[in-house]
């Protein structure tokens, strides 16, 4: 087992534990976020367990249809992308339990594995034959080309700064004081990456791919029942997994689940807050936004490192 250094079966249990915690955290957190949104709007809002109920309801649906093999596999790709991303990133710094399988690769693996689910989902949506799905994918891909750019630049600046691509080492370098966090040592890279963060969270103003009420909901138009359940699971898991990366890279990581919960929540709220006060961008508008703001900041960040 040279490929799996120090592999023990218990690691799988640890990883499942991480997965369990993160999914539940995601379920509750997204519900809480929605509830906060409702309260801000003067509504009571959904119950915090609503996500569980919806999930269960979808699994409990009786009739299902399938448009074909790729359609069937789309949600599988999607969830594998989310779970895999979580598995490839150390969740809690210093905890042997929650390193997951991060020895499989480094930051680059995480950055590229983000696309795994996107690609599979896009393919599945494509096979449904629904034009709205294709339109949604077209928009989403077009937007992501530029949205990922500031992140790539920020990460490049960051890895130049720390001279490593290993997430654990990057987190380790930020320990000690809050001022060791990248957000303070390298604010430009952080800002650049956060632009990308906001841009890829599928929230307003960058939610033109889903565009509810316009092209119904884009790629998942044809998905329902357990397919949708898998996607819902991913929908709560994936943003958290992604936020974990940002947390690890820019905000000192987390040494405990409590710190994890707070940091992820705060980061997540950034995109929520921006989202509730901004109307939706069209694709070319958001691309211009990234070119106008994300790109210069990113370039600056790689130049000053």
């Amino acid at each position, binding site marked *: 087992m040279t490929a799996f250094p120090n592999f023990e079966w218990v690691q799988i249990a640890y990883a499942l534990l991480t997965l369990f915690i993160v999914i539940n955290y995601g379920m509750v957190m997204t519900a809480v976020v929605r509830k906060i949104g409702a309260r801000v709007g003067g509504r009571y809002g959904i119950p915090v367990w609503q996500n569980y109920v919806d999930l269960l309801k979808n699994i409990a649906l009786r009739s299902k249809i399938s*448009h*074909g093999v790729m359609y069937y596999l789309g949600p599988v790709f999607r969830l594998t992308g989310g779970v895999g991303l979580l598995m490839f990133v150390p969740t809690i710094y210093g905890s042997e339990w929650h390193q997951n399988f991060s020895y499989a690769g480094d930051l*680059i693996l995480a950055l590229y594995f983000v696309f795994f689910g996107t*690609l599979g989902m896009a393919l599945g949506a494509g096979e449904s*034959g629904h034009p709205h799905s294709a339109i949604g994918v077209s928009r989403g*891909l*077009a937007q992501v080309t530029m949205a990922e750019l500031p992140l790539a630049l920020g990460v490049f600046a960051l890895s130049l700064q720390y001279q490593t691509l290993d997430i654990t080492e990057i987190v380790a370098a930020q320990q000690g004081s809050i001022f060791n966090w990248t957000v303070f040592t390298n604010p430009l890279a952080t800002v650049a990456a956060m632009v990308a963060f906001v841009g890829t969270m599928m929230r307003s103003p960058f939610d033109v791919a889903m565009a509810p009420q316009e092209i119904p909901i884009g790629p998942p*138009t044809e998905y329902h029942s357990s397919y949708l359940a898998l996607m819902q699971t991913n929908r709560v898991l994936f943003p958290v997994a992604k936020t974990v990366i940002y947390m690890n890279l820019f905000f000192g990581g987390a040494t405990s689940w409590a710190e994890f919960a707070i940091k992820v929540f705060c980061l997540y709220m950034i995109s929520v807050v921006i989202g509730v006060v901004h109307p939706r961008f069209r694709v*070319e508008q958001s*691309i211009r936004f990234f070119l106008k703001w994300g790109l210069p900041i990113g370039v600056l960040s790689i130049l000053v490192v």
Partner: protein
Amino acid sequence: MVSPLLILAAGLGAAFILGLLRGTSERPAFYVTIAALAAMSFVALSWVVGLVLGQTQPVEILTAGARPPFAINLFMGGAEAALISVVTLTGLLSAFYMRADLMRLGRRAMAVLLVLIMALSGLILTRDLFNLFVFIELIVIATAGLVLLSKDTRALAAGFKYLIVSQVISILLLVGVIFTYHAHGSLNIDDIAATPMAFTGASLATFLVLIALVLELKPFPANGWALDIYESAHPGFSALFSAASGTAALFAADKLFTAAGPAWLPLATGVGIVTFVGANLLALSQSHDRRLLGYSSVGQIGLVLLVVGQKALLGADFAYVAGGIVISHAVAKAGLFWLSGMVKGRTLSDWAALCQNPALVVAFATFIAMLTGLPPFPAFYAKWVLVHEFAATGQLPMLAIFLIAALIEAGVLFRWFGKAIKHDAQRSLTYHLSRETIVLIAMLAGWGLGWVWGALSDQGNVMTALPLLFALLFLPMDILPARVKNAIAMAGLVVWFVISYQDLDPLRLVFMIIMMLGGAVLFLASFHHQGRRMGFYAPAMIMYAGMALLLEAFTAFQFFAAWEMLTIGSYFLILRGKESEPHALSYILFSLGGAFALLAGFALAAQGQRIFWIEDLSELTGTLAPWVFVLLALGFLTKTAAMGLHIWLPGAHAEAETDVSPMVSGILLKAGLFGLFVLVMEMGHQRLYGVDLTHLLVWLGALSAFIGAVLAAFQEDAKRLLAYSSISQMGYAVFGLALMNHLGWLLAMMFAINHFVYKSMLFLAVGGVKERTHTRLMYQMGGLITLMPLSFVSVLVGIIAMSGVPPLSGFGGRWIFYNAIMSTDLRLPMVLVFMAGPVGFLYLFRLIHTIFLGQPKDNLRQVKEAPFWIILPQMLFVAFLIAFAALPGMILQRVDRYIGTLFGDQPLVWSGRIVNSAYGTWNPVAIWGVIIVVFVTVLGLLIWMNHNAQRVKQFNIVFSAERPFKPQTTHFAWNFFAPYRKAMGFLETPVSTSFWTGVTNALHGTAEFSRKLYTGNGQTYAVHLLLFVIAVYLISMGASS
């Protein structure tokens, strides 16, 4: 040895005998003519053989029993014997060729023909100035007589114009002769040579003699009359006029230039280069085949005149160079004129009739290759030496002009070839077995001469290279069934690999694996073709031969010859595509342009060294080195289709046949990459005006990677999309290479391997789809996943691999990329590369979605999976990709170690299956493990929950409570990235296309404008002639004072 005088005597004697025959007995007359010509040829050839074998010595023949200057003397040496052989053999073959017309016109015509050949031989033999004049006048008379052979009534006018001009020339010549005599007291050329005169007023006589002979060579622009003759005369005679008369006149001019002394050589150089450029430029706008051949003849003769002008500098090489070009020209031009006699129509497209006869197509290709100086023909060796001489003597502007004009010439000829191959024949061939035989004899002579020149070359004989011979074997084997040839070709590639892989370093080995074994795998797809598939295997194997030789090239010459070979082979391959004519032309032009840049680069680097070893590039220093780097890089970047030099690629790759596209994309592009590898490995960092050239390469690579991807996203044509994607991928590779660090090079290698695999796979898959759907437009497809599942799988694997998503091998490339850029100080170009990555998703998704997903169309509802033989290699590639993704070490580790020896570092640590760099880790097996386990678990979960899903059909979609109208209106495919185009469409502006279009338009415009010079009026031509003489005189006076 028979006296050379017999050559003249036989001609004259036979002409007299013809006079004695009865006017009605054409047949005996013809036999007499043939016998005389055969006798003349025999004598000439026996002299050649004798002189070559050393059995005889060159001989001076005295006439009238007195020594010069009191009598005329002739001289028979090696050059004379060879050229007379050319003249007489051309005469003999042309006589056979013109048999019907000669019989029609009777013995007088035959006599005139004999006199012409005799006079041409005399022109070559004579060492007497006045005798020269006499022979020239005889040639004029005979020519004017033979022009009348043509059934074209316009030939009459052409002949008269010729006579007018000849009158003027003879006046100039005679006046020149008499004053030369007055000055030297002798008419013997050798006597004149003994006391050469500098260019002064008194030497006006010499000038007149020389200019008269130059005018005989039809210099640009004083040559309208000659073009009219070419256009209207009988092709058999035109062959003589171009090949034999041109050769003889050139030799005469050479004799006199030698006699006049080196001070006069610039005159030849000047007139030669102007003629070479002008004639080729004007040929651009010709649509009449024979007139085009005329221009080409004029250009070639100008080229030889240029070589004559370089005589003093070329020294011992002169005969080799001039002879190479002259003889290539003679054989090729005679062959082409003979061919033109078999083609009925007179436009270039009418040559499509040749396609009925493959042997003639091969002959046509041979002649064009001979004219453009491609290997292995004599002109190739000649051009090599000539260019090196230019470079060694610092005549750089001349070098540039020469290469540009040669490129224009190639453009003219290959445009013609393309038309002939690709257009539909309106009229069939006028077929005569004898005529075909004659043409084929000329073709064989061409190949034979190629061998001779190769044997004489000190660089090595291209014709003896085993791969090339193997490739040429496919010409006669073309009658075999395609599958047999295919098996032989595959076996050839594998065998070559087996016998040669041991001597290679790992870097070359990887390229060898890609090119030879990869090529063999790609040939699997060719099993799909049934029947004979004429004309496919020879070019394909020539291309592979070029690549095989390229990898084992150690001298610049070997490298260049191999490069030209793979270029020409791939050109013929690309030309086979359905609509590929313009694209193949732009391909060959860019490739030859690139090859000429290589040639110039090597020549500059060699600085007169006879054998230049590639590895000596590293020892170049001083101001020269960066320029060499620029030129070589330019050459290689043309092949890798870097941004700006890329416009040939999309069309060429897209229009090529299904199994050709992967060859030219997956394999051929690697040749350019290999060249760049060699270049940066040997030359490293070079600075020009303080700019590190590798930095420029980094930028260029990044730009290609980005723009190529953006352009790919906007294509509607699946194969064009893949072609643009190749530009992008090659951009990555160039980028990695130019980073000039260990990981950068490993990155380039990784891309070379990956790009070969997935691009071949994708091209095959898309090609397979095209085979079934008969279209390449993606929006016309859709929903093919259920019909062509295996093609879908290979596209799926291909796009995952190419986009760099883990776990497939593209991710390895990305991982190395990040590690490589960590250790470089260049940062800004990364922005472009970072942008290129996600854009890759755009076109890849579009590719798979619009073809395989979405709504199936009515007419494609019942298409079948792509043919087995097209699928088979794809599946092999899929397997390889997966294996390579899990175990990249099996190839990369060795390469990595080798690159380590070059840089003296070892940034990657291979511990077991894990790769560690200074910055991070890549554990491909673990990645696979995690992903597979998660994927299977989730899939199992879904199947457990949704196993009873109802399979529905294409219109069972929610459509706002409506139903879709038709599949065509429901498939979202055309202009798929409309939003992206809205934002980034400005990148689509065809800047480089406009630039290159501008260049060609300017050339065409100039040609179109300048050719109005040739008004067709004989008097105007005479005026041109006089003005030309005056202009040359004034210019040379100015130059010498």
